[in-house]
């Protein structure tokens, strides 16, 4: 197949074969009000030299030499050059779906290994590599619960990532799914009482994130128990996968939706990410996306194939379990290589460093007059502090010291103005934490 533009003569030939006179006639079944009559408002076309220049300029915008205390769903972790060296091998450097098992054993095996790693991390029985990111995985988990329970009401903790909730609401808007949000307590955890009160026999899923958006770790056992008692599915979202190096896997969950970016994918320009969905074996037929399975070939040797694909979009079209999934093989491969390099002990050590450094940063920040801790629940590598003035103003000051400051929570939570979500990963040295505390103290001492 050639990837070349079609000539006018070729277009005419194709139209002739279909039996249409013109493109206009071909699209005549699309109602006029949905037709685009103006040219797309995009620049170009550009020459090759102009395109290279454009991307050089964008690359120069990268914040080299800055220290970042920004997390909130995207995390800067150490990566090995080995990961890039392996994923850039020609055999792997495609995200095309490995439909043809006979020529894609390497890709299929890599996905199989990824699935195994994700099951081990999440305490689930089956996982796949078909989600775009944590937000769509969370939405897919809810849709899966809807199919499994036949119910249309969803309870989502407000401490779930605001963008994950936005994606869910976008899907729910025209699909008859009713999304209700559950408040958080002074500890920063989901309000279990409010959750219990909202539990009725029409609830399809309860969605809780841990560590949640405020970095606070939720305790799943009681929440899952109450959820299961009402016949609903307990969905756990994980935005920071490294936390699973230390925290017990959410084995109580019926479905786990995870963001895999922390495993070897750099936080560059907002992506690409690697969504993960993991669940129980008994729910496998309602899982969105594709699964790689291990099998035996005609010569009795171990081999890998895409399996249980009968409910997928290329076969079931509009009746497919999902039409928003993909083949995330390249990102999944990066995560697999990264986790394999780290190993179980390495991941634990990385997680311990996150915890220790975040604890140290909190103690340093609390020495600054006017800085207070907001939520007192246990946290992993993110925590919330209250500042005596606007977080955004403070962050502008910090940028001058080449520090990317914490997230201003007021944007997503109006009641949390002057609250900052601080992220400290293993990439930040003790000296940089002290420099941050010093710069913050200075910023707060400056006259407004």
């Amino acid at each position, binding site marked *: 197949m050639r990837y070349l533009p079609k000539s006018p003569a070729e277009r005419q030939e194709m139209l002739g074969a279909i039996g249409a006179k013109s493109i206009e006639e071909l699209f005549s079944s699309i109602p006029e009000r949905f037709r685009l009559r103006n040219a797309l408002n995009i620049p170009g076309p550009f020459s090759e030299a102009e395109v290279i220049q454009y991307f050089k300029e964008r690359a120069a915008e990268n914040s080299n030499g800055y220290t970042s205390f920004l997390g909130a769903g995207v995390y800067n972790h150490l990566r090995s050059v080995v990961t890039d060296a392996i994923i850039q091998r020609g055999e792997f450097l495609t995200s095309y779906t490995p439909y043809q098992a006979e020529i894609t054993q390497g890709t299929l095996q890599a996905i199989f290994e990824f699935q195994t790693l994700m099951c081990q991390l999440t305490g689930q029985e089956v996982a796949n590599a078909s989600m775009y990111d944590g937000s769509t995985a969370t939405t897919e988990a809810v849709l899966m619960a809807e199919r499994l329970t036949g119910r249309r009401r969803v309870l989502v903790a407000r401490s779930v990532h605001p963008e994950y909730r936005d994606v869910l609401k976008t899907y729910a808007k025209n699909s008859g799914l009713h999304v209700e949000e559950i408040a958080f307590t002074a500890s920063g955890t989901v309000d279990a009482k409010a959750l219990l009160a909202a539990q009725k026999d029409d609830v399809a899923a309860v969605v809780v994130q841990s560590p949640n958006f405020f970095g606070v770790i939720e305790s799943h056992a009681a929440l899952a128990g109450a959820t299961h008692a009402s016949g609903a599915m307990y969905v756990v979202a994980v935005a920071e996968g490294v936390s699973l190096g230390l925290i017990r896997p959410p084995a109580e969950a019926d479905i786990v939706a995870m963001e895999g970016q922390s495993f070897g994918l750099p936080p560059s320009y907002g992506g690409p990410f690697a969504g993960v969905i993991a669940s129980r074996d008994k729910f496998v037929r309602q899982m969105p996306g594709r699964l790689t399975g291990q099998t035996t070939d005609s010569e009795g040797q171990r081999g890998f194939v895409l399996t249980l694909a*009968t*409910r997928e979009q290329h*076969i079931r079209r509009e*009746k497919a379990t999902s039409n928003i999934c993909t083949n995330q093989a390249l990102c999944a491969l990066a995560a697999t290589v990264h986790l394999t390099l780290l190993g179980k002990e390495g991941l634990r050590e990385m997680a311990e460093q996150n915890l220790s450094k975040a604890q140290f940063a909190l103690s340093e920040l609390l020495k600054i007059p006017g800085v207070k801790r907001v939520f007192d629940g246990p946290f992993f590598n993110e925590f919330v502090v209250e500042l005596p003035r606007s977080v955004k103003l403070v962050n502008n000051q910090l940028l001058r010291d080449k520090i990317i400051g914490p997230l201003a929570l007021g944007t997503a939570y109006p009641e949390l103005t002057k609250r900052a979500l601080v992220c400290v990963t293993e990439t930040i040295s003790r000296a940089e934490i002290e420099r941050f505390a010093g710069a913050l103290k200075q910023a707060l001492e400056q006259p407004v």
Partner: protein
Amino acid sequence: MAYPKQFRYTKEHEWVDAKGDLATIGITDYAQHELGDVVFVELPKPGAKIEAGKSFGTVESVKAVSEIYAPAAGEVLEANTALHDTPEKINTDPHGAAWLIKVRLANPADVANLMDAAAYEAYVAEKAKETSA
């Protein structure tokens, strides 16, 4: 495989065996043959309402998942749960042991409008000609 004379048939290849307002529903030999090896079946629970022409479950073979359409409206009395463990029976005995659901028909007269065995045999013969053409 012969198509039982007492059954009525749909264009979507379901059969219905009605006695008064009680009816047993399954898929035809032609349907199982087209699907190939059946590996999984999803059926409604007793008490569920089915509507004529609307899907009430799915049959999954190694190559596809297909909807099963209700030949007539009614309420599900029983689902053949034995098929969860032995879905392959749909391939070996589609008109007998591999019945799918038993229902109480909302309007037993509806069944008379469906094809009889002779009409269905002619219909699938035509289908077979189309596919081989």
